[in-house]
């Protein structure tokens, strides 16, 4: 009994593990296929039946990089970095005010921030277009910087607040009794606890800014297009350049994929605005 039962269970576990692996690979297969296709020649990219084995080439990746991708990449990098910096600049003090030094109407303020995430962005796109046209911000990276900051700020405040709430109250009290002033408290007690949370928040803002499509497509054109806008260019080719499209999609997604893998343990908490620990 003692010898058979565990073995059977182990066997069962083993097949479940194999099943999990198979399901996972099937699920991400479109993605794996994209990565494979990115290293194909165009002729190998669309064949019937699809080609699994081929001579890999870096030609497509090279073509994308030399084919006008870089300005989009630099626009994306600029908008993402600047808007994330602004989110932290506005968001850290706000999260502090809503957690460790709660003001009157804290829950109203939190509710307000949350409600902005629920309003459909399409309903504001026309005025935003008109405003940016009149202020000559249309097709500039600045319009996107402002909009992405406002898009990520509510989420970031919720998320960072949940990290601030984790600072042990006794530690702050003890620090106060020892005569530490606010800057010292922040530097010595609060920041060490919340710094990883702030970093995770920043990474999530980076993901959202990098992948944002709606504002970018409608408010930019030739000059300020971001990486997702670059991909739209492939829609006219009606799928004729699959290998190059795959290479572009891979290059465009790579920064976010890396950031996401780094932040995966914090991803849930950030995306749930701190509701899940």
């Amino acid at each position, binding site marked *: 009994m003692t010898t058979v039962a565990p073995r059977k269970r182990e066997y069962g576990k083993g097949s479940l593990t194999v099943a*999990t*692996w198979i*399901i*996972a690979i099937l*699920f*991400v297969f*479109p*993605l794996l*296929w*994209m990565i494979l296709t990115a290293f194909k020649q165009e002729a190998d990219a669309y*064949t019937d039946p*699809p080609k699994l084995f081929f001579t890999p080439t870096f030609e497509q990746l090279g073509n994308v990089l030399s084919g006008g991708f870089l300005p989009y990449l630099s626009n994306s990098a600029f908008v993402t970095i600047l808007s994330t910096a602004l989110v932290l*600049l506005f968001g850290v*003090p*706000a999260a502090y*005010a809503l957690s460790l*030094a*709660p*003001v009157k109407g804290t829950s109203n303020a*939190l509710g307000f921030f*949350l409600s902005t*995430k*629920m*309003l*459909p*962005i*399409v*309903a*504001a*796109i*026309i*005025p935003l277009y*008109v*405003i940016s046209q009149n202020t000559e911000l249309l097709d500039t990276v600045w319009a996107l910087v402002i909009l992405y900051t*406002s898009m990520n700020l509510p989420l970031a405040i919720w998320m960072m607040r949940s990290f601030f*709430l984790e600072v042990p109250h006794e530690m702050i009290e003890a620090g106060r009794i020892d005569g530490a002033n606010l800057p010292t408290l922040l530097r010595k007690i609060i920041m060490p606890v919340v710094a990883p949370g702030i970093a995770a928040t920043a990474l999530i803002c980076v993901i959202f800014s*990098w*992948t944002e499509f*709606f504002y970018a497509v*409608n408010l930019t054109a030739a000059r300020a297009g971001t990486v*997702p806008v670059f*991909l*739209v260019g*492939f*829609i006219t080719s009606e799928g004729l350049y*699959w290998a190059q*499209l795959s290479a572009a*999609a891979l290059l*465009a*997604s790579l920064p*976010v994929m890396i*950031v996401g*893998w780094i932040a995966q343990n914090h991803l*849930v908490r950030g*995306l*749930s*605005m*701190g*509701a*899940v620990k």
Partner: protein
Amino acid sequence: MSTLSVSTPTSQTHAKVEEKRGLSTAAKRRLPLLPALIFVIAVTQLPFLLTVFYSFQSWNLVRPGSRHFVGLDNYIDVFSDTTFLVALLNTVLLTVVCVFVALLLGLGLAILLDRKFLGRGVVRTLLITPFLILPAAGALLWKTTMFDPTYGLLHFVFGTDTDWLSEFPLASVMAQIVWQWTPFMMLLILAGLQSQAKDVLEAANVDGAGRWRTFVSITLPHLSRFLQLATLLGAIYIVNSFDAIFLMTQGGPGTASTNLPYYIYQRAFEGFDVGQSSAMGVIVVILTMIVATFALRLMFRTFSVSGGIK
């Protein structure tokens, strides 16, 4: 504080100082919040007010000088516009189906991942990656390599020449959105599963409850908060779906896969009809507000459990 104890003022000035100090403390405490609050109000609320203002005007960008007030005409037009109603229906369908299917798949994957096995970290990383690639890239990828009637993988698997995007446009878009959002649901539910107290599960095991019974009576109730949250957040994002429709079907064929974000975009940026698209925007906001009121109430219950609102 130290200055007060040193100067030892008379009781009258003391009170005054206290009052002043109280006021300035409140202001000081509010100060860190203000930049964020003002910024968000300016960038998100003012455009909405302008949308309302535009919605009472007849204003087409391609006809300069045509701008004038028309009262509620735009709203009357919107409600008698069958495309708007189709788009509304598609939006509801898309959101409900995608959230539900992604939630179910996410639950299944989360259960598979909620145990120790060889390469668990790798599998988890693999599974979250569809959520991390650019939605625009995901949409184009599905359009070409999955749905293409001649060279697509679905053609290869099923051996039919089905042109998925024109024969099943909405379902095709849904498939891509579900694929992209399942990892998010999985992550949230996995967090829920892992926060479950192990001793309760062991006790159930000792009491002779089978796996299914344990799942239904203990795990599901524990997960309900996480499932609600996943539904809510998924719905917030999926209701605004634009990338997949814009890149895969352009809302077509006809209006078969047009949702509200895409239709408003079309009226505004292809029809240049500011007045009418604004009226649609206002209607969408009102509808969202009705749904969101319930959602927010639910959400606040969810949030006050963890961390809490102090």
